[in-house]
């Protein structure tokens, strides 16, 4: 299956989405990420039972905070799919990239360059 997905996506592998902490999500945006999405197993399929549910809650927390601080809560998403579903993985990646293209770059990037100027 030679599926294509956007090259702008950088994959960070974790043993389970339950490993993804709110702090990781926050730091990613602070460091200038335009968007972050967490790809977990289907709900009910977690090897550790609740890892992907925990991840979803953390994504929701991050989203609320990003809205509060003016970065935009839509930039962070949770996606659940089966690890064997390559086509869906590629489709979700394209969807995420489109969403971020619509939202524009992380506003902190221009704020940082203005500060440096």
């Amino acid at each position, binding site marked *: 299956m030679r599926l294509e997905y956007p090259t702008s996506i950088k994959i960070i592998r974790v043993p389970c989405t339950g490993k993804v902490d709110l*702090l990781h999500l926050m730091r990613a*945006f602070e460091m200038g990420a335009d968007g972050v999405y967490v790809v977990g197993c289907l709900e009910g399929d977690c090897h550790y039972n609740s890892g992907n549910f925990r991840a979803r809650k953390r994504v929701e927390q991050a989203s609320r905070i*990003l809205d509060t601080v*003016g970065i935009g809560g839509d930039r962070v998403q949770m996606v659940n799919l089966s690890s064997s579903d390559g086509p869906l993985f590629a489709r979700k990646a394209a969807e995420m990239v489109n969403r971020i293209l619509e939202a524009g770059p992380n506003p902190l990037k221009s704020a*940082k360059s203005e*500060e440096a100027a």
Partner: protein
Amino acid sequence: MIVAEKKPIQEIIEEIKTHDSVLILGCNECVTVCEAGGKKEVGVLASALRMYFLNKGRDMRIDEHTLERQCDHEYLDEIREMIDQYDGVVSLACGVGVQFTAEKYTQKPIYPGVNTFFMGVTESRGVWTERCQGCGQCILASTGGICPVSRCAKRILNGPCGGSTTGNCEINKDVACGWQLIIDRLKALGRLDEYEELAPIKDWSTDRAGGPRKVVREDVQS
């Protein structure tokens, strides 16, 4: 433990927005366990505030530090060398820690980052409930280990009142009637006869009603 809840970020922004440098100061004890003011919460809040102010075009320095406790001199002394670098401090400790930090560093504005609620337990992850109001004269020996001062809405000492229905309190059907719990426990212990004994009038002078309290132990004093 002392149970607290994070304050909304917006409220903290209002507290500190006139400053140029702020230290977010966490506490490793109770507020860490109730996930309101430990090292992780310090990190999340500091990150959120940095993003907020940078996005507003403000060059604001927001640093993070977490102490073992904020209710003891020895740990608070740790920030003596660094505190002068900041215009203000947001303490994520309970109200005790906020006040003790403020008492020690009188030249610095110290802002609360959490709302402090009660002395309680972790019933399950994310659920904390009240168990003790620190009345200063513990009566748990005669109430089956369940405290009517903290678990009964009216602090009745010879309960239940007429509002107890199917095990729940009249103030809210989701709140268990403290006195029903006591009776059930005494029954399970085979000590229901103790329930028949009237509790004497409680001396509330050891409670908050007697004003701010103090414990002095000469045997351990230095």
